[in-house]
């Protein structure tokens, strides 16, 4: 399993020419080969969603995708959300509403939320709850987190 394939991952607009084994997961490539450790690994079986990133506009679980499958695709991770020192409205809302505690699941939730609201700005509160039940947070009990997402959704719609 050591034959490597040359691919290019575009992470937050920056191209990374890397060489990976076919079995290498996208999350490992983002973290280890591209050095972007903001995306976290929580379960490696596609349930917790801590590794959620946006690939060509869709939130995906980067532990369930091989790096080679993302060759040439546009990948957005938590590191690309803020504009310099100015937080993205979703990040700001998480801070304002105490939507995070330990912060480990946070990048996954941020990317899930941003991806979904960009795709479906008028998503209902109830559908938001459904979408967010696809990721796991063990600290917050979800209440403040969902409040933050709803507040940011409003803010993002306003723009």
């Amino acid at each position, binding site marked *: 399993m050591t034959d490597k394939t040359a691919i290019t991952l575009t992470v937050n607009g920056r191209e990374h020419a890397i060489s990976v084994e076919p079995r290498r997961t996208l999350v490992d490539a983002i973290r280890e080969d591209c050095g972007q450790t903001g995306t976290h690994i929580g379960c490696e079986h596609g349930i917790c969603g801590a590794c959620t990133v946006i690939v060509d506009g869709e939130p995906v679980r980067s532990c369930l995708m091989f790096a080679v499958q993302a060759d040439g695709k546009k990948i957005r991770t938590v590191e690309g959300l803020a504009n310099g020192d100015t937080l993205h409205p979703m990040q700001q809302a998480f801070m304002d509403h105490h939507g995070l*505690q330990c912060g480990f699941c946070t990048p996954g939730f941020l990317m899930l939320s941003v991806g979904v609201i960009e795709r479906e700005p008028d998503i209902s509160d109830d559908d938001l709850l459904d979408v967010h039940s696809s990721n796991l947070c063990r600290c917050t009990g979800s209440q403040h987190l969902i409040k933050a997402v709803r507040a940011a959704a409003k803010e993002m719609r306003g723009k």
Partner: protein
Amino acid sequence: MTPSHQRTYIGRSVPRLEDRPLLMGKGRFAADISFPDQLHMRVVRSPIAHGKLRGIDTSAARAYPGVHAVWTFTDVAHIPPIGFRLTGLKELEPYRQHVLARDHVRYVGEPIAVVFAENQYTAEDAAELVEADIEPRQVIIDASSEPGFFDGTQPTETSVLRKGYGDIDTAFRNAHAVVSLELSIGRHTGVPIETRGAITRYDEQRDILEMHGAAKVPHWNRDQIAQLLGRKRESVQLYEGHVGGGFGIRGELYPEDVLACYAALKLRMPIKWIEDRREHLIAANHSRQQHHKIRAAIDSQGRILGIENEFFHDNGAYMRTHAATVPDLAAAMLPGPYRVPAYRAIGHIRLTNKTPCGTYRAPGRYETTFVRERLLDAIAAKVGVDAIEIRRRNLIGTQAMPYRLGLETLGTEIIYDSGDYVRLLDKTLAAIKWNALQEELRARRSKGENVGAGLAMFVEKSGLGPFDKVRVEAAPDGSIEVITGVASIGQGVETVIAQICADTLGVDYTQVRVTHGQTDRIDKGMGAFASRVTVMCGEATRLAATKLREKALTVAAELMQKNAEQLTIVRGQIMSNSERHGPSMSLGDVARARGGGLVAEDQFDSAHMVYPYGVHVAVVGVDTATGAIQVEKYFVAYDIGKAVNPMLVEGQILGGVAQGIGGALLEEFLYDENVEPLSVSFADYLMPTARETPPITVLLSEDAPSPLNPLGLKGAGEAGVNAAGAAIASAIDDALGIPGAVRQLPVSPQRVMAILKNR
């Protein structure tokens, strides 16, 4: 005490200092740390629950390209088993765990070998090639049936814990009636979303062994690692980065941590170990599983005359760092907020062929609050009064405070320091409009819905000593650093400690950096557990910051040619008390004048814990066709003495409630008849998501500040989880109209269907 006019931050829900890096993807969690030329460690684990380890063939793994070493017990035979951090009874010592299995395996997941390779993928490939020859032995699965023997020789009943006071036999002799219950709590654990990890390296030049990825109790772990590896404690340093959730499980010293440390010394290369989720679910501490046989002697009014409880604690395969902590707390905290004139607890601490246990948030209390509150409900049913009235008749009154329970735990005598339990119950009933709620539920039930409400009360413990030490430093740029030996597991330590420091000193809280979990920055520390940080480190911070303030004012008085008493500090500026617009100098100026630094250190010692208390109310609906239970809404009232940051306290409670709901309805480590674990992924071990977590209302109360520290602080960490199993069980009874229906947690759909079938 901090003058009240200076309470700019204490009591206010200011934003967290922790948030920004975490939101930007700039956290430093264990897996984010790497060193050049590091080797990746992969643990080979027993696939058999109980057996004699006849041999391990590592030749294929050793020959695999990219593998540097493969170890079995013989390579680490000189390392003693890991010791006890708390409640370490002597008789438990033979049950400690070696870092690799010696001649027997006792649970699926037990480390039997370890592979070091140049990358994670190779390490995992090679680990697959390790072959163990294990002769299966008779498994032990149930801690409440007859104990057996491990390895053919060691009895699985390790110890019997006895606690009590009063004349229990007379209480039962004089009883008007006796109420008896048998109750079980399932096997759950904290399951933080970050798995465990350790990154180690040895600096030969300085002779320092470093471990990164430390959590919870870095100083104790440092001392223990040094002892196990035969090194001076100063030559081992632990570094805590960001920690992705604690909940009791994370940060205890585990076999893997010791292996990673020893490997860095032995192989002279940095070692990185990050466990995967399956490993986490079968190898990191489990908790909770107990079976209780409880009886109460009552008078004709339902007043408790005495309680006797015999329980069986399933500690899994070994005694880990917590030793007897969980059963000890279970026995000691069971009486809760009620007057129990006579009490006897007998706790059988037993081992089985399951993953070894430790604590999980509200250890011993989630369990015994469920047991005690089930008992109160049963007493109410026996004497024909409602759930509220039976509690009123038994609650400890304010005139009895401080209340000496007559029991000890964690090396401290239990004295409830302050509390007005009746008042908090009244506040709860008013806030949730209990009578109207009952009406509404009755109306819905009459239309065929299975809905009900349950209430449970509890006393928590927090602020465990014996000490915490803090150093506060003011730098020439005016920034303040608080250095402490506590740890952050995501709960907001940096913000809360900065708030206390800022108010005491007279600076902006965002100017205060809190350094924690670094053993090379402060010589001792107790860490973060038992809801202790805000109380112990908070008061130590207040003491040290008070000293620093006095020092700064003394220096400034000289420079400003005033008396120190005439000066105050406002937003970091030292100025005259009377003329706020007159000349001033900054704390940074003073630090500079002192040659670059201003330092003060102090320690808070406390021999007693503080005791916050609370009430939970759950409203649930049961689908009698499927057995599914939905928690419709949830309410927690909690008296915290004094909340430093109410937003963070609420956050702690909300998160705790979700975990409590998980334990009550969803989460359970299940095993088959060979004690093969069945809950090995997040698809099997179900935790509540946003969908399963109902709207939760929190009522924070400050009626009973602690008299044991000047700010009146009590802890928040375990309030949300404590009574969740109890309140939900009671609500399910109510929804089904079957008093005492719930006798086992979690109440899975299958168990609901069984209740309905047997009704």
